[in-house]
């Protein structure tokens, strides 16, 4: 399991820019950012190098930020890579709440971030299917 920063945001102009500036000023580097939004509010999900520090600085700046535990899996950066992972979960009847991906700087692997309803069963299902889980230490500093 890895730590993701989740932030509740109202849908107002400039709010996302303010959020990223707060992180930038604190010297926090983002690996991935994903926004889920409705007409009235959004949730910003961030994988970054210092998640706990990010929550702290965002909290101090008046944002509602928290740590969410998510699964991170490494898949070969090729067509069908994510499908293999999701099929393994679906076979076990595990629901994926949301998912997003980013590519490792080396370029040959993609990291899929998955939020599932049963994380422990999901982890076991993925191991059985031969999917490698990314270690937290490869994604960010363990602070």
């Amino acid at each position, binding site marked *: 399991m890895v730590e*993701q920063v*989740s932030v*509740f*945001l*109202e849908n107002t102009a400039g709010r996302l820019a303010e959020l990223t500036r707060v992180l930038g000023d604190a010297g926090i580097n983002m690996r991935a950012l994903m926004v*889920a*939004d*409705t007409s*009235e*509010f959004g*949730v910003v*999900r961030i994988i970054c190098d210092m998640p706990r520090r990010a929550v702290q600085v965002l*909290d101090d700046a*008046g*944002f*509602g930020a*928290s740590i*969410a535990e998510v699964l991170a899996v490494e898949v070969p950066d090729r067509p069908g890579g994510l499908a293999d992972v999701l099929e393994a979960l679906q076979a076990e009847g595990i629901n994926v*709440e*949301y998912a997003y991906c980013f590519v490792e700087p080396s370029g040959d692997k993609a990291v899929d971030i998955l*939020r599932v309803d049963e994380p422990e069963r999901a982890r076991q299902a993925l191991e059985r299917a031969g999917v490698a889980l990314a270690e937290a230490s490869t994604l960010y500093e363990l602070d």
Partner: protein
Amino acid sequence: MYQPEFEAMERSRLEALQLERLRDTLERVYASVPLYTRKFDEAGVKPGDVQSLDDLRRLPFTVKDDLRAAYPYGMFAAPLRDIVRVHASSGTTGQITVVGYTKGDIDRWADLMARTLVCAGATPDDVIQVSYGYGLFTGGLGVHYGSERLGATTIPISGGNTKRQVQILKDFGVTGLGATPSYALLIGETALEMGIDPRELPLRFGVFGAEPWSENMRRQIEETLGIVAIDIYGLSEVLGPGVASECLHKNGLHVNEDHFIVEIIDPETLEPVPDGEQGEVVFTTITKEGIPVIRYRTRDISRIVPGECACGRTFRRMERVSGRTDDMLIIRGVNVFPSQIEQVLTGIPGVAPHYQVVLTKRGVMDHVEVHVEVAPDIAFDEVKALEALRRTVAQEIASALAISIDVKLVEPKSIQRSEGKAKRVLDLRNEGGTA
């Protein structure tokens, strides 16, 4: 005038009648309502000490909390076997307040509402549609009895089912309407949507009250429906509708002073202010048997319109109510205290007890949006879960306030905190605010 012998009574005779009825009421409440026995004793005043109307100011006030504490029957001055009807306030803070009426009260109430309808130009030839709610709320039955007393044809349709309201308005040849002003306007707009121009119908007048409304709203109602719109005033603690009503001159509401003594007080010093000055409206009932109230503080802000009215009625007029001295809001005719929202929020995990109520008009009806802060440590980040949280908050607030509302989740600490009075309510209803 329905009862010109009273409505146009010479002032000195009226004041003599008031004093006689006041003294009789004071004797009765002092003997039969423990709360008044105690209050009068604490104030060191006996009913017999009241020798003139000016002595009224020596008496203690009654407030809504007194009625709440006496729930349900504790302030009745008549035995329950003599009470033939009860109503209860639509307010939803804590305990509701219950009021009781004797046969005599119901009889006098019918007369007062007949006066009100005649004030608006009604005659026994009229067909009056009563679109106020019937039930514990006093509006429906109040207008109903007045209309029957007058001898008008009375249609007890109550509120709701607006298309049917329009159909009956048209088919039954309705000439007078009783409703909250916002509902009257909704009936008018629904008629237009149905291809019926209400201005071409026989409808001639309406008596509207139970919620604050403006001159702009009056013009809108009069133009849409092609009628004369009359403002009426009342509250269940004092009677219900029938306490005061405008006449066709529409310059203040004549208080039925042979049944109620009206005072305007400074809400800070609690001293009466001279006619013409603004303050809190205070009523003393002088003919009620079921639940008389002495110097009841309404929290409504108004003033006495100086001078005489061209209609010939000698009753003094109170100006259209311009506000409240507490935080009570009247939304679609329902009394709402924003403090109830805080109680609801403290019981829901995931949100902070910080909120702001934003009132706008959606079409002609009041629209309520409550902004609620999510908790800073909100433990979930799925849109689905947040939507479910929003729905839960909306349902809980709606059930506590007894009105439907929308909820908007906002960021932690985003609602302005201020020292002293929190800006809990943003009322944009009279500023053309829409949502």
